[in-house]
């Protein structure tokens, strides 16, 4: 057990060392910008961290911000590990959100816990099914998932807009006047806010969705690293040919990975709708959580546990931004810091090349050492 923990720690360090460098770089660039703006970076970052950590309610708000992006981050990571670039998180998120509204509305007579469970599961299925369209197209016809998932984002957006107007609108379901959003979820279909249970959370919006998200991260860790499914997904992502040789079906792998990935994004949509918005509004753009998930996934080193850390970081940044604004520092600085972090992560191969060179030398050294160690030995 102890060696297990040690291995996870080593794994985490290996996957997180590039992201950590990137975060430091992002903060440094941010500091320079703040200086240029004529403000003190120390005051700015103090405000940032006070805004995110200065009290349980502040932490609660940070946790609230990280909830949906942790799930979409996991969604992206799982697909990416299988060699698929799922940028359809937006569409799958919407599919999950609207499904949660539909089931939450029509089954609202059921007891709270059962209803919540049905809503979550139906959203997972909806998101998974939506992503599987791209999965099947890729597996059976070789159509690249980047193309299909992007297009399915728009399909989902306009389909949801249609449902908002023509199916789930208060005008249709309750006979009130037409709205640009769906009916609101009844109380029974909402996730509990932590502040309603523990006063200490003050006015923060954090809800039980955070437990669902963290639970999913742990579950995905288990799936990826402890089960045959995870073994096959990872093998397929790292080396499709070797996986095929090992009797792993490519097409099955692709469809499954897209299904799981879409399920997680769908869950993110449901959790968001059940935890905070309570309805889905008509929109001209996709919500953005799916795209944020790409950044979270990459910064988290595509590791489920790393995703918890990276979504927390993004939570800190977006929550602390408000406090920074009070200090007269434009909140755009935060967007720039985020951008710099992502650019660094994306160009991490530069750092990797340096590491790789170093490692190659190490391997050479080890080889020579092994050979020297075996001097005179007869096989």
């Amino acid at each position, binding site marked *: 057990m102890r060696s297990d923990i040690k*291995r996870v720690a080593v794994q985490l360090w290996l996957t997180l060392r590039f992201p950590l460098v990137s975060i430091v770089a992002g903060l440094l660039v941010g500091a320079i910008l703040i200086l240029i703006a004529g403000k003190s970076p120390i005051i700015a970052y103090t405000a940032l961290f006070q805004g995110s950590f200065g009290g349980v309610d502040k932490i609660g708000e940070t946790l609230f911000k990280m909830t949906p992006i942790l799930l979409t981050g996991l969604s992206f990571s799982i697909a990416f590990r299988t060699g698929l670039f799922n940028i359809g998180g937006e569409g799958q998120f919407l599919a999950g959100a609207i499904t949660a509204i539909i089931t939450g509305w029509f089954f609202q007579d059921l007891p709270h816990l059962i209803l919540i469970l049905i809503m979550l599961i139906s959203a997972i299925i909806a998101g998974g099914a939506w992503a599987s369209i791209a999965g099947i197209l890729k597996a059976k016809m070789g159509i690249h998932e980047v193309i299909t998932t992007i297009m399915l984002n728009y399909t989902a957006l306009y389909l949801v807009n249609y449902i908002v107007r023509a199916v789930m609108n208060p005008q249709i379901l309750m006979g009130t006047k037409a709205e640009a959003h769906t009916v609101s979820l009844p109380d029974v279909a909402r996730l509990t806010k932590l502040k309603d249970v523990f006063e200490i959370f003050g006015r923060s919006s954090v809800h039980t969705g955070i437990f669902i998200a963290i639970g999913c991260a742990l579950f995905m860790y288990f799936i990826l690293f*402890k*089960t*045959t*499914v995870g*073994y*096959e997904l*990872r*093998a397929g992502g*790292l*080396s499709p*040919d*070797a*996986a*095929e*040789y*090992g*009797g*792993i*079906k490519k097409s099955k792998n692709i469809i499954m990975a897209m299904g799981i990935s879409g399920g997680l994004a769908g869950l993110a949509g449901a959790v968001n709708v059940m935890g905070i918005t309570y309805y889905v509004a008509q929109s001209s753009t996709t919500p953005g959580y799916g795209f944020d998930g790409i950044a979270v996934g990459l910064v988290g080193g595509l590791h489920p546990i790393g995703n918890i850390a990276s979504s927390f970081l993004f939570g800190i940044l977006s929550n602390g931004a408000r406090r920074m604004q009070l200090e007269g520092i434009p909140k755009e600085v935060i967007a720039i810091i985020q951008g710099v972090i992502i650019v660094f992560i994306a160009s991490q191969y530069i750092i990797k090349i340096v590491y790789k060179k170093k*490692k190659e*030398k190490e*391997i*050479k*050294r*080890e*080889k*020579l*050492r*092994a*050979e*020297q160690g*075996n*001097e*005179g030995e*007869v*096989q």
Partner: protein
Amino acid sequence: MSYVVEMKKITKVFPGIIANDDIDFHLKKGEIHVLLGENGAGKTTLMNILYGLYQPTSGEICINGEVVNIKDPNMAIQHGIGMVHQHFMLIKPFTVAENIILGNEPVTHKGIQLDMKKAIQNVERISKEFGLKVDATAKIQDLSVGIQQRVEILKALYRGADILILDEPTAVLTPQEIDELGIIIRKLADEGKSIILITHKLKEVMAMSDRVTVIRRGKMINSLDTKTTNTDDLAEMMVGRKVKMEVDKQNKESGEVIFSVKGLKVKDNRGLDAVKGVDFDVRAGEVLSIAGVDGNGQTELIEAITGLREIVSGQVHLDGIDIKNFTTREIMKSGVSHIPEDRHKRGLVLENSLAENMILGYHHQMPFSKNGIINYEKVHEHAKILIKEFDVRTPDENVKAGSLSGGNQQKAIIAREMYKNPRLLIAAQPTRGLDVGSIEFVHKKIIESRDNNQAVLLVSLELDEVMNLADRIAVIYDGKIMDTIDAKDASEKQLGILMAGGDRKVSANMNSKGMSHDEK
């Protein structure tokens, strides 16, 4: 005697290790000089120093008697040193001429437009001058590997190289292409070029070189005229102990037919017929070897019978059961083990740990997993056993498979595949790119498998290997089996003719008359 290259007391220290230890290396003008050593012996490091990729820790280099300091490959080129890497640096959609002139393009008198006509003329001129026939207007992607290598050599010559370093030039070539390469470099040497071959293949040393320098574990062991030595002595110098080049193989009655293929037809990736109706049987306790030049349908054949490629028509039986429509997993389950020809692409997930690789293909079976949950304790236990039993040299089972040497990667695959105790063992080019010590090991294991009454199907491009291991040899050419002969009765000449698509009767005749296959 004057030398074109003198490397004196070269020492290269990497942090914690001495890769080259006080090595002296001398190259005479117009000679072909082999740098011989096992993988990791330090021969490539030494040549990288000469080519300016590394700086020596101590020691000096003289080119044509002058002490030089080669800081980078550009300086090496200025000193007339050219290097042909093992993996070609060619742009595939470009033509031969475009590739050769790259970085040194002739321009029209206006000085801005590429003078393609002149480029082609230049290429044709040097191609003629050195007798390296190529079509200057052909695209690289349409050329065979042997011709591509020729283009690489021309590229070096075009840049004015007088000293050519060829890094493992035969690793990617077929037997015929190796012969052609031998002729080419001999001609270049006659023209006054000095050539360094980096290799670990002993036969080539004897066939191609004038002199040989042996390096072992970073130290120069010996430098001698090829004429005065033989493969056994060289092998001993290279490995540091006596090596058996031939495999101990007892005569053995083969048993019942385990695996049979009838009328097998398979298409390649482009949808063209690759295997055109192949029949063969493999019996218990025998090695049937499929010999042939690369690209005659071997890859497609193996992929088809292991479920990795669709079978167009024909029958495949294992123990009397029709496995034609089985998936790869089902085929493995019915007792087929497969050592794939490309261990990097197929055999291992390089980024995964050695332990995880050791269960690839039976990760879903007891005792490694139950109800879809992998028991990593068992997996590690299993890996440790295999590492010990098959002598895989690795720090532990947690390292990435990609960090092992080629020989040890192959040992890991063989361990995994043989531990299953299969009915049929398919070994596709099992010793490709391995050093002498590892080849010896692999051969021993294949014979062990045969002696355990398993059926062994060996596909190899190395004629020596085929002759050494096989009980029967089926020669494949253009997707068809030309003939199947008892290994006892087979001669290299006869096989050579069959491999080139020659008629079987003619080949038998020729064999009896002792004519060489060049005269076919």
